[in-house]
Every structure is written in C-alpha cells, then in structure tokens.
C-alpha cells in the first residue's frame, strides 16, 4: 500500500473518532442547566469538555491529513450532514436523564478499551490522544456505572425509565464494532484498535453493570447502521443546526 492510500484510511479513521467525540460532547452540553442536580450539570459538562478536547486535536489532525486547508472549526462548523462520520450512538438523542446515562454507559464502556488499545497505535498522534482520553474515559465509565446502578436498582419509576432508555439506545451499539475496509486495513497496520477484540470487553463491562442495576439486556434484531458513511438520524440535522448556527451566521467572528 502506498502512502497516499494510508493517509486516506487514516483520515477517515481520525475523522470518525473526532466526530464521535464532537457530537457526543454537543449532545451532553444540552444538559447545561437542565440536569436533575447542580452536580450533574457540572459532571456532564466536564465529560463534554473532555470529549471536545479530544475532538479538537483529532479534527485538527484530520484537517492536516486532508490537506485542503480546513482547520478544526472548518470541519466542525462548515460540513453538512453527509460529511459527518460519527456513529449513531453518539448522535442519538439523550432522552431523559435515565436514557442519557444508559447511553453514557454504552459509550464509555466502548471508549475506555478503545483508547487503551489505541495508546499502542503506530500513529503517534492517535496514541497521544488515546493516552489522555483513556484516563478520562475511566472517570466517565465510573460516573455512568454509578448512575445506571442507582437508577436501575432505585425506585420502580427510575428502573422503568432507565430500562426504557436503554432499549432506545441499545440498537445503535452494534455499529460500534463494525469492521469495514478502512478499519480492517488500519488494524492490519497497527493503527486502529480491533473491533473484534473490543466487543467482548464491552459486553463484559455492560453486562456486569446491568446485572448489578437489576436491568435486562435488551433483545433486538434491529441493528441500524450508516453513521460512518454519513447516513444519520433525523435528529442529527437539528443538532448540527444548533451547533453550527453561530459560526455560519457570523463567519470569522471573534470575541
């Protein structure tokens, strides 16, 4: 494989990781001033900030790999829906607090082993981002775990709602472990982490937490996909409108 081909794969992979972080950071920010407790406003926005930090570095790098002069802002604010490659789980609506926590559990249980594996990536920048993000994802997972257990093993109402939220977001988790050509080639080259190795780690973590939370593992044969190729949920357009509106209305504005 020549260097140009490697760059295309690396660009796609870096962009996916960056888009995942950016879009989930935006989703979590929607909880600002709306969380059930002040502490949760702080917690969810701290997590959003960690994700945004990783996204900024990844998107900056994606812009360099692309070589068209787009920086992190260009990629975050000036791309349209089909150009985003985030997974559906990251962009899915947060629903109520129980659903947001269910999603945080599924996401963090995925990102922790993902970043841990990527610390050994042959790509220096991915390894660097992963080294920091792995430490942060451990906090995110602890946070999600404690809330899912508290809600699941809480009142009848909290149990019902977090189970319902879990059913909503669960189908989007299958896409995380898809192994398309880009991933397969990069795994081969020691750049990407292997989804086949991530899946059992994720399952063990999630199953253990759900058991402790007295929640049922959802049973579904619906495995929606498309995020990696730019086919997004209807709600994604609304997310982008809110995220991009200011930048597009006032290009180049500074404060």
């Amino acid at each position, binding site marked *: 494989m020549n260097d140009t081909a490697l760059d295309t794969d690396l660009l796609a992979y870096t962009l996916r990781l960056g888009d995942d972080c950016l879009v989930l950071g935006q989703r979590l920010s929607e909880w600002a001033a709306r969380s059930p407790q002040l*502490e*949760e406003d*702080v*917690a969810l926005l*701290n*997590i959003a*900030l*960690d*994700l*945004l*930090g*990783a996204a*900024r*570095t990844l998107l900056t790098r994606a812009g360099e790999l692309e070589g068209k002069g787009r920086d992190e802002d260009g990629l975050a604010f000036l791309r349209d829906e089909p150009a985003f490659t985030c997974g559906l789980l990251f962009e899915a609506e947060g629903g109520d607090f129980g659903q947001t926590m269910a999603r945080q559990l599924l996401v963090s249980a995925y990102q922790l082993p993902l970043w841990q594996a990527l610390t050994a990536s042959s790509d*220096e*920048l991915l*390894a*660097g*981002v992963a*080294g*920091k*993000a792995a*430490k*942060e994802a451990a*906090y995110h997972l*602890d*946070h999600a775990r404690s809330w899912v257990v508290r809600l699941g093993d809480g009142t009848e109402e909290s149990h019902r709602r977090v189970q319902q939220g879990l059913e909503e977001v669960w189908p989007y988790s299958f896409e995380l472990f898809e192994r398309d050509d880009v991933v397969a080639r990069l795994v081969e080259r020691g750049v990407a982490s292997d989804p086949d190795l991530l899946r059992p780690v994720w399952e063990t973590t999630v199953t253990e937490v759900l058991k402790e939370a007295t929640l049922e593992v959802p049973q579904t044969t619906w495995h929606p996909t498309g995020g990696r190729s730019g086919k997004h949920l209807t709600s994604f357009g609304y997310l982008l409108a809110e995220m991009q509106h200011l930048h597009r209305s006032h290009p180049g504005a500074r404060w």
Partner: protein
Amino acid sequence: MTVEQARTVLAEVTDPEIPVITIEDLGILRDVQVGADGVVVTITPTYSGCPAMQEIEADVRSALQRAGADRVEVRTVLSPAWTTDWMSDAGRRTLEEFGIAPPLRTRSGPVPVQLGPLRPACPQCASRDTEELTRFSSTSCKAMWRCGTCREPFDHFKDH
C-alpha cells in the same frame, strides 16, 4: 537569554484557573530550550479539554518577551500524558493552603493508613471524615468533596 534565565521567568507563570500554583509546580511545564530558534517552551495539558491552554501559552510568551526574549515558541505535547505525580511537593502545599485538597498519591513515602477507600483530608480543619459529592467540579482536574466535621465543601485535586 539562557535556559536558567528562561526558567526563572517561567517560575512566575501561574495556572490561570488556580492562580496560586505555577505551571512548573503543576507539572505541565515539560521542557525549556534555548537555541538558534529562540526560547522553545514545551507544555502539556492536564485534561484533553483544558480551556486554559491558550491562556497559558499566551502567558508564557508574554512573560518571556517582557524579560527580553526575542523569539518564543510554545509547543503543546500530549504524550507522555500528564499525571498528578508530576506535581511538586511545593505545589501540593500551596494547593492545600489555598483550600484545595491536593492529590492523595505522594511521590515519596507511603500514603497514610486508612480503612476503606482513600479520602483527602479537609483543607480547612484537617479532618479525614470527608465524602465525595461528585467526581467533577469547576475545572476538569478537581472533584467536589464535603467535610463531615466542619461541614465545609471543598475542592479536591483528583489523582490522575
């Protein structure tokens, strides 16, 4: 400007969000070089999304320029990832005096023996009867705690 001089100047640059601690004591100042390209300063963020990095970069630049450096380059590196192990003993004391419980791990010597999980001592009254309110706080690097003895809430600089 020599490396020594540059280091002396940088010893005065503090963290914008916790202005009592210097970037050196916090462990985010990783390297200082002086060469044909001027002064090259390497810093690393505490957390990925630390919003203070740009301000720290600007502070480093202006402090060195005020001291007479012609050319200053500030590099940000992610690897190796910052850890609270890099915080100096002086930095830990400063935080505690400021009312922020420092990270629990100490680089030298054993940690105090306690039953159950490690808890930071209250920076107000030194009681160990403390509880975590949330893992997260006003900045990424801190958690919110409360003292059971004096009832004061306080920030704890998380082990990381």
